[in-house]
């Protein structure tokens, strides 16, 4: 049973960042802007968060309340991610530039900028931090709940709950609020939305900025539980989040499902040696095979599930007020 808990606990480290970033991508695409620069925005967010934590830990600031320090880092990451995504918003919405090109340039710029800054200031590209104080070994009260407590409230990070909260808020915003419905309208048929008085430019700006904030947040959420240093790389998670978003058909709950599906297999591949019967198979270079499993599984599920794409109809097309 311990193995099961371990797999679940590990999988959460993959699920939450994928979920948050994919939700970010969803907000941008719902408004009609393809944000392929999620990877780059994640890098910016992770960098800002890690630099902040590094500086504060060195100074001994907030050493007694690490969770507050982490939350401050998360907020900073979200803000910087949002600012960075404004590069996409301005070019894609106001200047009507090609969204794929802009996204690609963000992906190139982000790691270059952060490593440049790191090298220029410290001569090395790695920035170290100590993740240990952020770990919640067992949450009071909740950790004692059988099963769920073991999965969600032991060896956990506060980011898990923030990620789940974002899922709930995103679902409500998208389905139940005027803002969410207007946002979706701008991605489906911006001319129609404009004709009933919705400001398409404003909506698309909101969509992109939300995606920037969530991707920046996702960057630091991904780094904290899985490493002790950051060197301008989030291992392709921005692209994976894009895949999770498409897998989830641009719907929050389905995106969550897709992230869980992918994360479970991913965790399986990283802990297989601890699982009795899998280790007993004793395949040479089994690591490479298990690493492949989440990707193959995703493709198989996609092949059987997605006949009809639910992509926003006007995504990727710059909105021109004059066009009919």
């Amino acid at each position, binding site marked *: 049973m311990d193995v099961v808990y371990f797999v679940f606990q590990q999988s959460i480290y993959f699920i939450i960042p994928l979920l948050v970033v994919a939700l970010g991508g969803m907000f941008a695409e719902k408004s009609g802007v393809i944000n392929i620069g999620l990877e780059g925005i994640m890098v910016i967010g992770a960098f800002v968060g890690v630099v902040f934590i590094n500086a504060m830990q060195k100074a001994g600031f907030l050493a007694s309340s690490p969770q507050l320090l982490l939350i401050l880092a998360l907020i900073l990451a979200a803000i910087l991610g949002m600012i960075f995504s404004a590069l996409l918003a301005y070019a894609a919405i106001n200047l009507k530039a090609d969204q794929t090109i802009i996204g690609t340039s963000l992906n190139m710029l982000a790691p270059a900028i952060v490593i*440049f800054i790191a090298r220029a200031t410290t001569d090395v590209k790695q920035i170290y931090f100590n993740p240990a104080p952020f770990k919640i070994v067992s949450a009071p009260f909740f950790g004692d709940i059988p099963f769920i407590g073991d999965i969600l409230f032991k060896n956990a990070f506060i980011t898990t709950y923030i990620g789940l909260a974002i899922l709930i808020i995103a679902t409500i915003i998208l389905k139940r609020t005027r803002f969410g419905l207007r946002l979706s309208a701008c991605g489906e048929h911006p001319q129609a939305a404009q004709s009933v008085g919705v400001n398409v430019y404003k909506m698309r700006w909101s969509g992109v900025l939300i995606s920037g904030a969530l991707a920046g947040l996702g960057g630091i959420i991904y780094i904290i539980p899985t490493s002790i240093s950051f060197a301008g790389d989030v291992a392709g998670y921005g692209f994976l989040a894009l895949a999770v978003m498409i897998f989830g058909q641009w719907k929050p709950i389905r995106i969550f499902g897709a992230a869980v599906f992918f994360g479970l297999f991913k965790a399986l591949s990283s802990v297989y040696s601890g699982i009795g019967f899998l280790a007993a198979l004793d395949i040479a270079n089994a690591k490479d095979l298990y690493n*492949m499993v989440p990707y193959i599984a995703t493709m198989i599920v996609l092949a059987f599930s997605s006949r009809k794409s639910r992509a926003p109809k006007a995504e990727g097309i710059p909105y021109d007020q004059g066009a009919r």
Partner: protein
Amino acid sequence: MEGLEKMNSNQFKENVTDTFNDIKGFFKNLSQKQGFKTFTSVALAVIAGLLVGFLVLIINNPSRAFQGFGQILIGAFGDPLSPMTGIGEWLYYATPIMLTGLSVGFAFKTGLFNIGAAGQFLVGQCAAIFIAFYGGFFGPFQWIVAALAGIAAGFLWGFIVGVFKAYLNINEVITAIMLNYIGLYTVNFIIKGNALIYDSGRTRTFKIPENSRLPDLGLQSIFKGSNVDIGILIAILIAVVLYIVLSKTTFGYELKAVGYNRDASRYAGINEKKSIILSMGIAGALSGLAGALNILSPGVIINNLGKDYAPENILPAAGFNGIPVALLGLSNPIAIIFSALFITFLQRGGFYTQTIVPIEIIDIIIGIVIYFSAFALLFRNVLAKLITRRRERKAELDNSEPKSDIDNEGVVS
């Protein structure tokens, strides 16, 4: 006396104006050509990128900014005493990203986004490695067969993406990303499991056997001491072929038509599923070839080293660098030759400048260039509109007011 002088000067003035008008007319014609407009807009993006890069250098370290920037601009030539070596290296490093750039650009032209060049590159490389170690019986054709194997493997990887897109309506971006990782781990699994190929002591493959390495066609005696080989010529040749296929053949037209409008193409009688699959397959084949040529490269032939591959859990940069190359070349195969050369030029310059400034400055510059090139096209249209408006206004003025000599007199005196 005075009159004569005046007449002479008037005549002279007229001649000058004529010549000037001729030149102006030439530029006017040139500036109306689509290609020229595109070129200017891209050039503007490049200049903007370089300026921002320079600014970053100044902010970073004013005392070294000029030296560093100058080094980036000419650094690709390497040691000034033997610039031919530097140029040879430049061509050598341009080869893989030229091919992956062509791969991404070809897909763009047919309305698809090939983000899977990295995976296609790896499987192409792996197939070439196998022929290099097992295909001794192909004799002098071994490197050709190995390159073809790379093409075939890359084609297969693109083909799968195409089938998912055409028959299952699954976005090519998601399958290509998945296949990148599947390719990475498959290649590592296969190579690590083969004792003839994999040297577990060095945790990399053995060197590619000498008889299956690419020939250099005498290029290395021109560019002495560099790694250059036949690969760059193959890449340029392929760019020309792609240009002809895309702009002069029915096949290319069909592929592009499906990219513009899938439904309309179907009604026009084009087999749109086949087109999508072939487009992705060809794009994959190009990246596969990039991987094959990369690993088969002989290195500096005198040193007789050859290359090897270290299986790591990282996707190759050549795959992702194809995207900016294609974007800067606006997906035109011929332009991609130059954009690959340009981006490699900067990268080489940055490589030789590392001791002065962090090498990441190059990616910053390229990123900015790509960013500006995205609305360079738009900028081009705005510029064109401005020029036509000015001309129209001028034409109106010319028509409404009869040409007077007073203006000329005024200018003369």
